């Protein structure tokens, strides 16, 4: 059964359809949420709250073709609101706010050598601007197109395109600048392919 149809069943009040989306996207949503704020409790609550509200308001929702990006977008908004509130009470540092950090566990790298080399690439990735990192995350980790990413991040397509393009360009420039360190590391990784 395709996603569009499942979504229609969800709108019609089928609990099975709700369970379908929850099971199918729980990991994707949780991973994205954790990348955004690194507070598992906030992410967990936001996911619950999101599904609860979607279900309660299902009469007012419209049919959609691709539920996953829609869910990512709604979750992003819930997390943002919850973070805003938590930050008022200074339980969160402002530098933890909506900053995607890539970690070695995010990649299928098994050998220790490879991991060591890969850390350098991660460092470069993590030096990009938060917007660039989030766009790259959505583009490559979720295999979403520019149009979809622009909807999730509330930016126009050109800004998303620029963020990713500029981010990768910065990566390349950094790699050239620090060629003694980085290029060696990078080449080592490349040799493994």
């Amino acid at each position, binding site marked *: 059964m395709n996603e569009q149809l499942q979504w229609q069943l969800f709108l019609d009040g089928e609990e099975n359809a709700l369970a379908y989306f929850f099971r199918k996207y729980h990991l994707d949503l949780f991973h994205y949420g954790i990348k955004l704020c690194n507070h598992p409790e906030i992410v967990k609550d936001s996911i619950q709250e999101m599904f609860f509200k979607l279900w309660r308001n299902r009469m007012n929702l419209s049919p959609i073709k691709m539920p996953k990006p829609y869910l990512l977008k709604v979750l992003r908004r819930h997390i943002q609101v919850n973070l805003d509130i938590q930050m008022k009470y200074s339980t969160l540092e402002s530098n933890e706010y909506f900053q995607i950090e890539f970690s070695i566990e995010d990649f299928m790298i098994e050998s220790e050598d490879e991991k060591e080399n890969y850390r350098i690439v991660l460092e470069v990735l993590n030096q990009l601007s938060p917007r660039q990192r989030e766009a790259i995350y959505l583009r490559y980790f979720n295999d979403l*197109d520019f149009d979809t990413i622009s909807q999730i991040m509330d930016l126009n397509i050109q800004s998303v395109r620029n963020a990713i393009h500029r981010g990768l360009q910065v990566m390349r420039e950094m790699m050239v600048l620090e060629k003694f360190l980085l290029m060696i590391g990078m080449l080592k990784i490349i040799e493994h392919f």
Partner: protein
Amino acid sequence: MPWKMENFEAIHLEDFLTDYSFQSFVAGEDRESVERWTHWIAANPQAKKEFDTAVKVMKLLLKTRKQVSNLHTEQELKELLAKIQDNEISLEDESSPAAWWWRAAGIILLLISVSLVFYFAFKSKQTDLVAYNEVIVPLGEKAQIVLADGSHIWINSSSKIKYPVVFDKKERKVYLEGEAFFDITRNEKHPFIVYTPDLKVKVLGTSFNVKNYPNDKNAVTTVVRGLVSVESQKNEIAPILVNPNENYVLNTSSAKKDKISAEPEKQTDQLPKKVLPIINKKVNVEAITSWKDQMLIFFDEPLEEVALKMERWYNVKVHILDGELKKERYRGKFVNNETIYQVLEAIKFTTPISYKTKNNEFFIDKPK
């Protein structure tokens, strides 16, 4: 889409990486992309170095994986479905036999409990027929009740509490106006929820104090033990978890003022202003909850608030005539059922005041 040869010098890593067909080529997804890029690189050997790097970086990016520790999908789905069912029960299902049974049980119990005041919740949001007990505590009095589940509630002066004769299948809901101290028996399957005019306070099993009088500036929830989730009734503010020795303070005075001054027509197109609550850490829990043990404690409070407490405690009116005096902070502890005169004399002992009394009204002023 591969670029023309004369542009190749301008082509960098990022250009390859942001190209969809390049991604499909590296992933080997579709034949068309594979053929296109194989041809392209054969025709543009000058770009080979950048191209090879791009292929390798793309391979890395395609090696992403998602893993999260402690992901309990099934458990959380269960939690979600329970929440949803819960919500639907309260929205009423006419045909359900369970709903009928609960209604019948409600009516039977209603007939038995004659000594109490009953309300049919036709008027409230719920259309379910639920029988409630209501306890109204007048000024100068206090009351204690023990619920069927063993939970203990102390109710302060000038307060009103309403609770169903039989608790809902899923949740234990009570409605409070004024101040009460709750010592709730733990039951994870049936959360206990206190609704007040401004707050929604949800717990599993803890003790905490809720204060939400109509003429107070703030609605306050103070936690003694356990964890309490507090939510504002009016704004779309997510629930906040409050820990022991913390309190949640929501300013309710601004919203009330607006309601009186604004014309009804104007109000509808104005979005309600978001009033954000404040969480105070390390509050004096003993002072806040002392009333339930018949102790009147003022803990570094302005005389203005001391006067309000005295009004409720002694069922009198207290007026402070001097503006400066209202802000004067005061500490004191009265544990032996002192009279209001003893309390006023004690205040006089540390702060120079004078007071007059007329028909249960007290007037406090600076000494003449």
